[in-house]
């Protein structure tokens, strides 16, 4: 498939899913009435449902999905490892921990901003630790191992918070949040996440050239005039901004960053740079689709979108491995 055709197809798919996401909900509004309420206003109830419930939800699906897909593609290219995903550098786990601390301390209930602030603080703590370690030992492997250690520590501390949590309701809230969801988010959440995701996405998007050079290893990349340190800085900070901001408003959503680049790589020339835009759109499409499934799959109530992405993602990933027979490129 030519790059243009692939990108157009994914853009169309994402647009369709975005509109579909706007049209689906328990309120049973007709498509025409829904869109009219969104664009022109109309009766108050419909307008509130569309503008303050469904629109932020669809926008967050779009933004967070895109940031997960993009950072997954960037990390796989940078670490030259098809198993890399945003979780591997420890950013997601640390962001989750930051949010959990807000729940645990009760601050989450006091202010709408407390939860995202805690998650972002966690994400940036992860970045500072990673950069400090990377400054001493430059290798990519060190980065992966540090990320794994950081993730484990964050997971342990999250469990500790659950253990010590003052009442069962708080534990329930924490577990529920950890599963990831786009439910009941407002335009405030969009406003918090959008600038950070945009900034992180912009940083990540500039790394394409360097990622292609990294196909030849770190030494090979340097011989092509790539500044390894700068690339590493952009990848880490970009991931932290994009994924940290996403985690801050939706909780941890797994598998999108891992699976999407794999699904799309065979449709490209395998150059890491030609996978970035498709992965961003593919991530958005997958998360929007998963959120539609989460809302419609069970009659009573709603599933967590993180559960749906993992339920779709994990078996699909296994199928990819079995089907490809060779290495997972």
């Amino acid at each position, binding site marked *: 498939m030519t790059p243009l055709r692939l990108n157009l197809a994914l853009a169309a798919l994402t647009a369709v899913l975005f509109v579909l996401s706007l049209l689906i909900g328990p309120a049973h509004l007709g498509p025409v009435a829904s869109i009219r309420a969104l664009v022109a206003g109309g009766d108050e109830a419909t307008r509130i449902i569309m503008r303050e419930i469904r629109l932020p939800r669809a926008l967050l699906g779009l933004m967070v999905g895109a940031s997960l897909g993009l950072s997954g593609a960037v990390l796989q290219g940078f670490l*030259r490892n098809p198993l890399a995903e945003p979780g591997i550098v420890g950013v997601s786990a640390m962001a989750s921990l930051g949010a959990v601390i807000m729940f645990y301390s009760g601050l989450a209930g006091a202010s709408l901003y407390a939860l995202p602030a805690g998650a972002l603080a966690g994400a940036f703590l992860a970045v500072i630790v990673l950069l400090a370690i990377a400054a001493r030992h430059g290798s990519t492997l060190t980065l992966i191992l540090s990320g794994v250690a950081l993730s484990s520590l964050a997971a342990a501390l999250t469990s500790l918070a659950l253990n010590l949590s003052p009442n069962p309701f708080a534990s329930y809230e924490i577990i529920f949040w950890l599963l990831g969801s786009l439910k009941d988010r407002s335009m405030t959440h969009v406003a918090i996440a959008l600038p950070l995701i945009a900034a992180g996405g912009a940083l990540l998007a500039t790394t394409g*050239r360097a990622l*292609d*050079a*990294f*196909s*030849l*290893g770190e*030494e*090979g990349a*340097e*011989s*092509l*005039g*790539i*500044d390894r340190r700068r690339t590493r800085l952009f990848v880490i900070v970009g991931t932290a901004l994009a994924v940290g901001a996403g985690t801050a408003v939706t909780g941890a959503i797994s598998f999108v960053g891992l699976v999407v680049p794999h699904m799309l*790589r065979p449709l490209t*020339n*395998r*150059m*890491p740079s030609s996978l970035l835009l498709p992965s961003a759109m593919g991530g958005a499409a997958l998360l929007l689709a998963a959120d539609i499934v989460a809302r419609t799959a069970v009659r009573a109530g709603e599933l967590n979108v993180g559960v749906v992405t993992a339920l779709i993602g994990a078996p699909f990933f296994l199928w990819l491995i079995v089907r490809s027979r060779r*290495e997972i*490129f």
Partner: protein
Amino acid sequence: MIEARNLSVDLSSRRVVSGISLGLVPGTITGVLGPNGAGKSTLMRALAGQIASTGSIAVDGRELASLSFAERARLVAHLPQARIISWPLTVRDLVGLGRMPWQGVSRAFSNGDRALCTEAMEMMDVAGLAERPATELSGGEQARVLAARAIAQDTPVLLADEPASGLDPAHQMTMMAGLRKLAAKGRTLLVSLHDLTLAARWCDRILLMKEGRLVAEGAPADVLTAERLGEVFGILAHIDHDAGGMILAPVALAGGTAHREARP
């Protein structure tokens, strides 16, 4: 033209390259020889500006340290010893990466870029593999594809770290003949090798290294003497000559035995 003065490199506070001064002349191939761990690869990485070193390095009269990463990549190409190909890129795309330092943000390939890539692939006898995924090739084929990438970079200086290792005898010659062609175009080449005959017959000059130091430097016939090979490599070598130059065959460890029947 690349010149180094009093070049030293410490890795994990161990001195790996120690006070080396050299001047490589355009239009020549200089071979670096020495036992494993002599510091050959580290010397090349330092000359490519990839690791911190003390002393000075100048390429075409410009201090390497004062150049940006991109400027450096337009002057010096480095073919690392580790042969890494991370994704199943086609051979053509992989060789095309060599043009990166010369391309703008759009990374568009000019006709000149394409011609240089084709020429490099032909030189390394991989043009017939152009559309194959590089990860599915044999080790020796991959080595030639990666060499073609470095050649396509089209720099005045090429540092090739063991480009001929793992190649079949015919392709070892193809490799050296390709490098000779580059030398004939006025390029400066530094090539590390382990095959003594290959080095003696294809290189204009030889640098012999041991334990981070330069122990001898000069024309192959002057440097690759039986005594020195004994000293540096600890081998007994049979040295012969024909019309094409020297023939060097290691036949035994110095002070050891010369054939397998005598093995303990």
